[in-house]
């Protein structure tokens, strides 16, 4: 009788240990999966005090004048970039994909090139075609008016003309969580 009881108890304990290990492994995998997912997040950071976006008027590579004031009431993404800055180049394709989504929502993207001439930018667009305006800040006055100290830097301006979000470095602009965060500014 006793050996049978010990055998049943042993089987029971082994089963319990097995299920316990499975439970631990499940939660560890869940933690790892969350960490990997979080690593791929594309954060936009809130700008302290949400100051008013400095006004500007700049020409694009076709000579057309763009004024920030003309976008009053719209969400505007302002990106500062150069052709020789590798991370600036990395994010342009995703920014173009995002632009295709955003333009249906009346959200604008203005990419301000710092200090380069028409020919340089035009040649660059052969390899990096984009359909949003490429504006030229030839004397770097506009970038100096904005709180920018490294390239690329991107600001998101809300419908009231305030700087609400900032990204330093590349982002995947068509990432669904990032797109959602920008679309929320329209509500």
């Amino acid at each position, binding site marked *: 009788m006793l050996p049978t009881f010990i055998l049943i108890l042993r089987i029971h304990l082994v089963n319990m240990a097995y299920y316990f290990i499975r439970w631990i492994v499940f939660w560890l995998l869940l933690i790892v999966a969350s960490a*990997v997912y*979080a690593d791929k997040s594309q954060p936009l950071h809130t700008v302290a005090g949400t100051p008013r976006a400095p006004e500007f008027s700049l020409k694009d590579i076709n000579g057309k004048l763009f004024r920030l004031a003309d976008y009053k009431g719209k969400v505007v993404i302002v990106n500062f970039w*150069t052709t020789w800055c590798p991370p600036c180049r990395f994010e342009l394709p995703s920014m173009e994909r995002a632009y295709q989504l955003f333009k249906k929502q009346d959200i604008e993207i203005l990419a301000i090139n710092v200090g380069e001439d028409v020919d340089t930018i035009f040649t660059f667009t052969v390899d990096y075609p984009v359909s949003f305006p490429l504006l030229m800040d030839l004397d770097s006055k506009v970038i100096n008016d904005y709180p920018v100290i490294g390239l690329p830097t991107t600001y998101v301006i809300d419908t009231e003309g305030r700087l609400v979000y900032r990204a330093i470095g590349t982002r995947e602009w068509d990432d669904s969580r990032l797109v959602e965060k920008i679309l929320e500014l329209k509500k």
Partner: protein
Amino acid sequence: MHYQNRLVIGAVVIVIHFLLPAAALSAEGRVLTGTDDDAQLPFWEWRNEAMSLRLVQRLPDQTRAFFMARGFSKEHAEIIAQSCIFQTVYKNVSTAARPSVIEYDLRQWKVLYKGKALPLKTKEVWQVEWEKANAAQAVQIAFLWSLIPTQQRYQPQDYNWGMTSYNLPPGEKFDLQLVWQQDGERRTATIQDIECAPDIHPDPENPFG
């Protein structure tokens, strides 16, 4: 072995594979060295759970070509090329799950060279030189934005990519003492035996040979 046991052992191996490197990084940080995949040149990288700083050699010839293409005279491009320039990627690698804020000021960093502690040559120091040399405005703009910011504050996943200059002759070795604030706490680290790129002129037929 029962297939379920194999499954559990496999899962444990996967977990260890992910968790051990993370645990190692969360300690005091470490230095990685090797050949940068993109540049095919040596790199030195310091990284912990929140910050990574990668310095990739730039050949003086690359620097000459880059700045002459941006309008610098041959003479001025030569001055930059002889100043030990590194391509630099400074990143806040922390995640939303464990966010950190990284702040630095390059003026606090030290170049340890032949028993002396020297400052980096920051964009402000260069700017004074270019103004004295009457360099064109467009040239100065290109130069200043191509350098890593002297001071910066990075939130999770923020980063800059630019050049840093150490004001040493090509081929010289030095140690770099880093200083930064991580979540308000002052941290320091030293990367040893960094080597300025030698002033070689690669054979176009065999650039890496």
